[in-house]
């Protein structure tokens, strides 16, 4: 018996320092710092996960150029050159460096209710597609995926420091390996963007309440112009898996847009032999119902869009809203089609009367096939919006 007690005490002594240290980091503090200054002892995570066109990103994490506080801030220069051909880029703060979920490195941030950070653009007007927390390995087959992901809406920076907050109240923060991230794209910043970040930290603010999902105000744009901050949903759901071989997508087509500076040009040709293809506009990108991120579009009575064919008589089998079914599913779906396009811009309407639009991940979609377009098809879309 004594031996057992001795083993128990020894085990307690062995494990205790680790667990106590972790507790101290997690709960006794009301802040958990990602970045204060270069080399600050309080810093956690490493901005090592460069994504997309990583060649387009230059980072200086000890910039002396007018930090918000302390001695330094982080400068990012995004060139938008699409060095790797993606037209987007971003950076994840990970721990340990470059850990995409293969190793156990995340922190238990239970108790934190928000993440705050300061940001400014060099000129003002730089658009960051999203800032966020978590999400590492969440839909991947990795041993240590993050317990949640929370993302901001697109943010247009000003040339003066401004504090931003990501509400984390009610989120499962029990394992966060991706402490912070940002992504943006060439469409949102055709000339590139230089911006600065400082004082990034989690905070335990007892006053903050979980964000209630509110009905979006109308009109609610899917696409108005290239890079418009009012755009929602990302045309990321290329269908089927071979879609990228069959579809060409250009959301910056400048010739004869219906309104504004640009429209979307789409070309389909059955290179893969799959015989059909289409694109879903999703929120966020590539969300096939894995992430709980639907917009409440209950106020929408219809979705309208303008379309034209390159030659006229192009046949699109279906234009659709909603219909994504996954761990989180769209609340409804409806469609029109087949539609024979005109050579001139024509407005089409998807009637939403009586539809449950309270939760929409798949904001818009189209699909067609080789049987009705044996020679392929080129068509244009513009001004896609919920009203």
């Amino acid at each position, binding site marked *: 018996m004594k031996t057992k007690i001795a083993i128990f005490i020894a085990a307690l002594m062995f494990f205790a320092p680790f667990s106590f240290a972790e507790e101290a980091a997690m709960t006794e503090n009301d802040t958990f710092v990602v970045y204060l200054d270069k080399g600050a002892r309080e810093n956690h995570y490493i901005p090592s996960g460069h994504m997309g066109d990583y060649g387009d990103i230059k980072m200086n994490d000890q910039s002396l150029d007018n930090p918000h506080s302390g001695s330094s801030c982080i400068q990012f220069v995004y060139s938008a050159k699409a060095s790797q051909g993606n037209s987007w880029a971003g950076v994840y703060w990970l721990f340990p460096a470059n850990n995409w979920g293969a190793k156990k490195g995340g922190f238990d941030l239970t108790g934190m209710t928000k993440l705050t950070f300061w940001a400014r653009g060099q000129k003002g007007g730089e658009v960051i597609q999203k800032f966020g927390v978590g999400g590492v390995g969440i839909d991947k*087959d990795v041993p240590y995926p993050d317990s949640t992901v929370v993302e901001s809406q697109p943010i247009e920076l000003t040339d003066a420091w401004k504090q931003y907050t990501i509400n984390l109240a009610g989120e499962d923060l029990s394992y966060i390996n991706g402490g912070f991230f940002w992504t943006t794209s060439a469409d949102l910043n055709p000339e590139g963007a230089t911006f600065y970040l400082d004082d990034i930290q989690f905070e335990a603010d007892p006053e903050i309440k979980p964000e209630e999902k509110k009905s979006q105000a109308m009109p609610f744009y899917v696409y108005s112009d290239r890079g418009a901050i009012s755009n929602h949903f990302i045309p990321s759901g290329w269908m*089927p*898996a*071979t879609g990228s071989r069959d579809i060409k997508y250009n959301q910056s087509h400048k010739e004869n847009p219906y309104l504004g500076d640009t429209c979307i040009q789409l070309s389909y040709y059955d290179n893969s032999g799959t015989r059909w293809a289409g694109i879903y506009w999703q929120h966020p990108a590539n969300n*096939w*119902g*894995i992430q709980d991120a639907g917009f409440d579009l209950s106020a929408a009575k219809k979705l309208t869009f303008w379309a034209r064919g390159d030659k006229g008589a192009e*046949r699109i*089998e279906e234009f659709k809203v909603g219909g*994504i*079914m*996954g*761990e989180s*599913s*769209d*609340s*409804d*779906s409806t469609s*029109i*089609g*087949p*539609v*024979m396009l005109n050579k001139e811009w024509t407005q089409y309407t998807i009637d939403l009367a*009586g539809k*449950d639009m309270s939760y929409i991940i798949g904001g818009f979609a189209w699909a067609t*096939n080789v*049987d*009705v377009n044996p020679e392929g098809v080129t068509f244009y879309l513009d001004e896609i919006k919920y009203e």
Partner: protein
Amino acid sequence: MKSGHTKHKKHKKTHSSKKINLIAFLIILPIAIAAIIIQSRPRVYIKKYKDSRYQLFVRNRPYIIKGVCYNPVPIGGNHEYDVFSDPEKPWISDGKLMKEMGINTVRFYQVSDNTEGVKEVIRDLYRLYGIRSILGDWLCFWEYPCPRYGDEDFQEQVRQRVLSRVNLYKDEEGVLFWVLGNENNYSFSGQVNPWTSTEIEEESEPAKQIYLRAKTYYSFVNQLAREIKEIDPEHPVALGNGELLWLDVANEVCPDIDLVACIIYRGKSFGNLFQSLKRNFDRPLVLTEFGADSYNAYKKEEDQDMQTYFLELQWQQIQKNLYGNKEGEGNCLGGTIFEWTDEWWKHNEYLQDTWSIHDTDAGWSNGSYYFDIRAKNNMNMNEEWFGIVGLSEELEDGINKRIPRKSYYALSEFLKNPKKKLKTKLQKPK
């Protein structure tokens, strides 16, 4: 005095007797009327309540359809297999397993020309296990070169076949209802089994062509339903449909359809299915084909947890939308899972060598079944792995040995005690 007393007594007795007679009459009358009404009700009928809630009755008792699609093709067989002519009588051991699971209904997509065999199967399942049969008809959907639903001769051919079969089996106690068509509506777009007519050809706009196909087909099905009811008023007639597509057109031309029998593959949730049907075609719904496969095409291994996860969630929603469950729509009558046993022939149906191989290649893609959607080319639906009962090459009682999967046991618990199971928090497959 005595006599007067006696007279009074007699009068009193007579009065009392009349009173008793009146009371008895008043008691018996409603019972008699009820008995007449009950007797006059069809053997199987659907009752409609307020707010378009529906309940199925069989022999005047509420009946929830807890069913499976039944086409027990043995290893090495193919679509030509005819269970009704199988000398090994697999339904005897299958029915026993089904009953133990809590299954009360099987769905046959199509009955064969072996009339006595069909009757034997229906009778055995009902008499031995209390399992009733839903009898379907493809309506010649797979007719070569195409099902010409706009052609009067073709309609007559289908009509004669359907009505003769109804005549043959309508008096079988085990018959639950008739299903006309399956997913024939997918032909409206011209992509599957395309058919046309002069009227359709004269229309240049594709969307209107589809509308005309839908109207032609549904009108024909409604005519069939009307004629079935003339010869068999004892059973409801269902319209078989893939998803809810074009049921708004059926709503215009199908007053004689009693219920909708839908094929739905939406993953873990049926979404707005029940509300949407109520809005577009207000009829009760039986999910006559739904389910999940048990092979993870991404991990390339059998994944019974994945199948169980989807099936339990699907059954929970069926349960929630039955009559009497206030939080649901009350327009669901139950469902038949696709399917009872795996079918090893399906992936390469024209390669006989593969009918004896349990093929692990997926045949189609469906993002709603998201656990393995990252398989190559997103192909994640393994057509040969939909059974809640697996097959072994080993024979037992002359048939491939049945190996119930996890889903069989999980659903067994659920079907026997659905309210308790609804509260259970499901574990997601890893």
